[in-house]
């Protein structure tokens, strides 16, 4: 069991730099167009040939949103025209038909996640049909431990909609809140009441969903400590099993919607740090455990138990209990992680549609991990998920001399050790309680691409 992380603004201010969030290593900016359909097919084929092939995790991207939230950095399309869904779904069904046969039928889908955009942009009938197509082309696990999750926007779905999802197999729901403070909601163009949110969470729990999760964002315009404290109290009263508190990444040159946000309304660095401190303090006092990065979970939640059992892993949804799966991303811009490869679908609808209409998989770019990439990905994954790296086991697994292989990395890490973020012992690396807040910085020590890049600032958000 880990101890509660201690919060130290002085230390955190010193580490206010930009870096990847390590939902993958190598990070997405390293993906390239040289990785296309033939490479993806080869990766899928090879993934069937292990003695015990990995189970599958499927991600479905629904890119449409009815209304633009100004903070959003996701790949989405704002439209009120629900007539766009059938056109998108037609291609999505096509993609499922093309990619599913690449995976042997004895590989169960143990994890399914719908994200967006707004998955509930689809109506109940469309959702049912999509699930049916998925079940027909993939082998859904019948294990009760399977995790079928969906992100819901409570402003655009009612209790009936949520109740209709349970018979389709969904058992986890994730609900965006960000902040309940009316001033903040106005500034980010997302007006959402506590009652709306509660209705969705209650309906999910009533209809047998196993786990509920909510998303918050700190660092939003007009955000104050007093306002966010009230939000946190209201969130705790909603009793979600998990809470994600993301740092707002203001990158208006990259995300057009963010240009609606006045930089002058953003809280300063000191306030951001206090907002994070407040979040940690309130949530841990209320019985949540700080898992790492932006994630909190009740001590009896699967995420916390996975961390204790060392089966926690990092993926594109943040942290996940299902380690050791091949991830198949479906839909516009979705990312797949199959064997030692990453790949991403076309980033816009015209290209996504064109590929499928021509009978091709819509993969646009990707990357085959080198042996070195795999070794570093393992080190980063262990430190971010377990907070510990056992050197002997690592050396045996990768056939390396750790001290020699990571000579430069350990030199970088020693600076962090002096700030008490990590303990470097001959037999292990151990992230300290303070270090849990700076996991990105610890991971960055092992990032070979970052070390070569002159100015990571352009590509990545602030690491705090």
């Amino acid at each position: 069991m880990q101890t509660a992380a201690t919060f130290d603004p002085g230390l955190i201010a010193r580490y206010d730099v930009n870096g990847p969030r390590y939902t993958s290593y190598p990070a997405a900016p390293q993906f390239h167009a040289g990785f296309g359909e033939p490479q993806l097919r080869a990766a899928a084929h090879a993934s069937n040939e292990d003695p015990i092939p990995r189970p599958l995790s499927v991600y479905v991207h629904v890119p449409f949103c009815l209304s633009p939230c100004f903070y959003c950095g996701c790949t989405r399309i704002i439209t009120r025209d629900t007539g766009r869904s059938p056109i998108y779904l037609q291609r999505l069904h096509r993609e499922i038909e093309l990619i599913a046969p690449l995976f042997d039928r004895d590989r169960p889908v143990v994890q399914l996640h719908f994200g967006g955009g707004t998955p509930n942009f689809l109506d109940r009938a469309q959702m049912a049909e999509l699930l049916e197509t998925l079940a027909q082309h993939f082998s859904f696990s019948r294990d009760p431990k399977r995790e079928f999750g969906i992100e819901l926007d409570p402003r655009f779905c009612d209790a009936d909609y949520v109740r209709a999802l349970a018979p389709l197999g969904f058992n986890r729901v994730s609900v965006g809140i960000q902040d309940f403070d009316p001033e903040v909601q106005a500034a980010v163009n997302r007006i959402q009441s506590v009652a709306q949110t509660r209705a969705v969470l209650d309906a999910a729990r009533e209809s047998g969903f196993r786990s509920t999760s909510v998303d918050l964002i700190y660092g939003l315009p007009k955000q104050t400590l007093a306002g966010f404290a009230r939000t946190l109290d209201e969130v705790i009263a909603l009793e979600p099993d998990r809470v994600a508190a993301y740092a707002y990444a203001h990158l208006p040159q990259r995300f057009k919607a963010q240009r609606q946000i006045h930089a002058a309304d953003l809280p300063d660095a000191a306030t951001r740090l206090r907002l994070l401190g407040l979040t940690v303090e309130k949530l841990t006092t209320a019985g949540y455990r700080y898992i790492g990065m932006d994630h909190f979970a009740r001590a009896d939640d699967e995420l916390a138990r996975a961390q204790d059992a060392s089966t926690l892993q990092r993926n594109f949804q943040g942290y996940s209990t299902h380690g050791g799966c091949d991830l198949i991303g479906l839909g516009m811009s979705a990312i797949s992680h199959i064997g030692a490869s990453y790949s991403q679908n076309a980033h816009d609808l015209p290209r996504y549609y064109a590929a499928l209409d021509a009978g091709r998989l819509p993969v646009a770019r990707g990357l085959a991990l080198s042996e070195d990439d795999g070794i570093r990905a393992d080190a980063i994954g262990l430190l971010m998920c377990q907070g510990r790296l056992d050197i002997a086991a690592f050396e045996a697994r990768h056939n390396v001399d750790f001290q020699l292989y990571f000579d430069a990395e350990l030199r970088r890490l020693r600076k962090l050790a002096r700030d008490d973020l990590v303990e470097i012992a001959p037999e292990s690396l151990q992230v300290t309680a303070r270090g849990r807040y700076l996991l990105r910085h610890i991971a960055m020590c092992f990032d070979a691409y970052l070390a070569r890049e002159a100015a990571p600032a352009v590509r990545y958000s602030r690491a705090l």
Partner: protein
Amino acid sequence: MTHLHQPGKLPPHNPIADDGDAVHFCSTCAFGSVCLPAGLNKSALNDLHMLVEHVGPFHTGDHIFRNGERFGALYAVRAGMVKTRQIDDEGHEQVLGFHLPGEMIGLDAIHPAKYPCDAVALDTVFVCRFSFPALSTLAAKIPDVQQRLFDLLSADIGKSSRFSGDHTADERLAAFLLDLAGRYAARGFAPNSYRLVMPRADIANYLRLAAETVSRVLRRFQDQDLIQVVGRELELVDKPALQKLARHILRD
């Protein structure tokens, strides 16, 4: 970092019998042990026009020889794994065997002087090529070499019938895993853990099982703590239990 040599990266675990040179035999050489007592090192063999030629690398999917090609040489695997297989008239593949470093292939081609199967590299493979006419000449002169050749031929005949009996999937897989372990151990490699280089489709084909059955049984073996599988790395955890399962197949 792929273009750089990374310090701290240790030599691969993958077995390779690459310790031979112009004068010395590889430690796994099938003929080294019988030639040396007869006073023949490799340079002496070359004087006899007995060509021991190192060939490779072959990459995954490359053929070392093809079905129907004229037989002229035996091959010994030096590194990597070789699959032998036949393809029937309907295009169905039948996997005949997997060959590890130190093992001979091509023994079944002596009569009728044609290779009766394909030999395909399953990973990066290096082989030794023994010219058969030269080897025959040598066998006529050195009785131990002749005896060794007969031994190899005899062992090869026995092997091919091993999985043709009426055995359960559990028995077949237990025997298969133990057989590989024994063969690695006999050549001085780690006896209880090795890499299953061959795709599961090939294992299934060889054992005449469905691919799903191979995985289902292996998963159960793992749940029963008989083996541990991580990716393609395999560890035999409870050998006695596996031996009990395999006793009808591995009688000897």
